[in-house]
């Protein structure tokens, strides 16, 4: 069997569902945006224009869910086979609002610049996973007003993989689309095989901001996929129980889905969450403790409860250096959501409490995902894997290393690490020589040697620049 794990029972999910619906119906959500109020009104919700409060009755939630697909196809630019987001599939991706990078050469923190962004995107392009690239960092050497469009431009120029873009408003979203259309050839081609999605981060508690509304509306109009995530902080922007934090995340996501589906019932939506805790000592949100993966498993189960594709944060770390804590946090927050079958686990490369990224951590996370993927495969027990003929062939006292059976199977059955150190303790050698960090660096050089830039139309860069600077 393939090992899988749940944290909520059916009755518990029903309880979260009922509570979320009650929150939306009785308490409501704030929508500080005229267009959102109009749309909720159009959907049949009870809108108080003065208080800007929207109360959503149950039947609208049901109606919205009936318009949702159980899977979303995310295309890349290379081929016809999309990532099918939904069901039991587990994919890993980058993420990063980080503005700091732990420099590969100096091992010192400094601000992210566009060159770092390109390096990270290219490394993400050659490693597998990441299966998709969620904006992996925020360059600080470009004007803040257009940084999102520059990120999109750099992703278009440097990777074939599906990417999730961010945009701070409708204007920049439209620029993102215009650039993607330039690369795709036409809007129709982009709509047919969308090679980028858009990230929407909802604000907690229960509050629609202008930017979120604008992105939901504009992307829905075009039918381009949305990765909508809700990230309430347990004890900060949601009540101090994990269950209530699930209710908060769920209610916020359901209300955003109502908005999107009112604009366009066909818009592909991914139910994603970053629900976390507020660390009561440091007063920051923590992404590396046990609550984070528990919440991710919970939000994933709620997505599955409604038959929706799921995603959210995972493989994350609070630690500020590449150390023991990093390994512990990355594996814990990556493995558990994977066991719950979170379809899109985003976090590769990011650490330092969401504030930093590095090429090294991206490679280490690549190793972590390999480890996790092997666990997901479980132990295959069938006639082939239990065949006694190899026992007979080698016999008691024999050697299985040289058996053809080993040659046939070892790569299928075993995780073959790229940078974990497994050698013998050699007291005559430098113990750091083969340390994970050193090996990660070696792997970087090797991986990057295989990088080829995507095929792009001629003069594309100047065309994209013109769009960015419009």
């Amino acid at each position, binding site marked *: 069997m393939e090992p899988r794990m749940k944290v909520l029972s059916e009755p518990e999910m029903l309880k979260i569902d009922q509570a979320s619906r009650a929150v939306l119906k009785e308490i409501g959500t704030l929508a500080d945006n005229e267009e959102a109020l109009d749309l909720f009104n159009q959907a049949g919700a009870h809108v108080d224009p003065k208080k800007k409060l929207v109360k959503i009755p149950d039947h609208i939630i049901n109606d919205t869910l009936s318009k949702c697909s159980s899977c979303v196809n995310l295309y890349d630019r290379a081929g016809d086979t999309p990532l099918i987001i939904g069901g039991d599939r587990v994919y890993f991706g980058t993420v990063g609002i980080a503005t700091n990078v732990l420099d590969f050469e100096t091992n010192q923190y400094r601000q992210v610049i566009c060159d770092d962004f390109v390096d990270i995107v290219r490394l993400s392009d050659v490693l597998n996973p990441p299966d998709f690239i969620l904006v992996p960092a925020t360059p600080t050497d470009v004007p803040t007003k257009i940084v999102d469009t520059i990120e999109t431009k750099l992703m278009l120029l440097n990777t074939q993989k599906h990417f999730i873009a961010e945009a701070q408003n409708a204007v920049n979203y439209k620029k993102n689309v215009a650039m993607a259309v330039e690369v795709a050839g036409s809007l129709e081609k982009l709509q047919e095989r969308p090679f980028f999605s858009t990230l929407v981060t909802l604000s907690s508690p229960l509050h629609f901001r202008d930017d979120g509304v604008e992105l939901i509306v504009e992307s829905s109009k075009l039918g381009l996929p949305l990765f909508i995530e809700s990230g309430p902080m347990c004890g900060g922007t949601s009540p101090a129980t994990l269950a209530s934090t699930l209710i908060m995340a769920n209610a916020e996501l359901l209300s955003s889905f109502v908005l999107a589906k009112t604009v366009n019932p066909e818009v592909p939506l991914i139910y994603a969450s970053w629900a976390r805790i507020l660390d009561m000592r440091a007063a920051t949100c923590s992404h590396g403790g046990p609550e984070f993966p528990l919440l991710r498993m919970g939000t994933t189960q709620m997505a599955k409860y409604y038959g929706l594709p799921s995603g959210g944060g995972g493989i994350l770390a609070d630690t500020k250096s590449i150390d023991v804590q990093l390994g512990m946090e990355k594996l814990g927050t990556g493995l558990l959501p994977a066991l719950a079958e979170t379809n899109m686990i985003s976090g590769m490369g990011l650490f330092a409490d969401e504030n930093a990224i590095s090429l090294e951590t991206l490679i280490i996370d690549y190793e972590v995902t390999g480890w996790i993927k092997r666990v997901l495969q479980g132990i295959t027990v069938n006639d082939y894997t239990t065949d006694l003929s190899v026992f007979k062939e080698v016999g008691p006292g024999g050697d299985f*290393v040289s058996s053809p059976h*080993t*040659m046939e199977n070892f790569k299928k059955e075993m995780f073959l690490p790229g940078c974990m150190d497994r050698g013998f303790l050699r007291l005559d050698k430098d113990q750091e020589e083969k340390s994970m960090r050193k090996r990660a660096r070696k792997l970087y050089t090797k991986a990057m040697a295989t990088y080829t830039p995507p095929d792009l139309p001629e003069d594309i860069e100047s065309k994209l620049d013109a769009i960015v600077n419009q």
Partner: protein
Amino acid sequence: MSTNENLSRIIEAVIKIDAGLLDTTIDDALQAGLDPLMIVNEGVTVGLRQVGDLFAEEEIFLPELVQAGRLVSKAVENLTSAFSEEKTIAKKGTFLIATVKGDVHDIGKNLVSLIMAASGYDVVDLGTDVSTDDIVEKITELNPQLLGLSSLLSTTMPAQREVIQTLIEAGVRDHLHVIVGGAPVTQAWAQEIGADGYAENASQAVLEADLLMKQMTA
């Protein structure tokens, strides 16, 4: 096709661990008039050494190294048997190998046996947990040029020293080159116990053996 091209193709076939391709390239080389000895020494064994390097660099895996070793052994055997007695390919020397007393590990030792055999040595493998007396007796009987002592445990390493001491006492140490190896064994340990050579892995064992044989004939 030039001699070098023929040899390069053979080397490439070994690196790819492709039995079919290796047969074809050897046939082509023989057709082109290459000397079988040259095919062995400058073709297949060079390829195997490169495979050994790839293994040491963690580019390929243990079963692949074993398969390459088997492939090359078979190729060498075929090349040898294809010719009349006066044209046989002479062995580089006799290599006796054992895992020392108290130690039952044999994966590394088997690998060394295989790669040494594939590299042109006449290999006598005494197995694992072999007593010092048995090793010395075999040395006296077979009079090999080389002895390999494997030890996978730090607790059995002293047995390597014991063997060397006993060989001296029995008066058979002088014309014998002893190479020690195994995970906990180091160059410093080899020197301390009076071994002639140390090998960290199977392909290193071949290099070390070749070097010692050269010294012997010089």
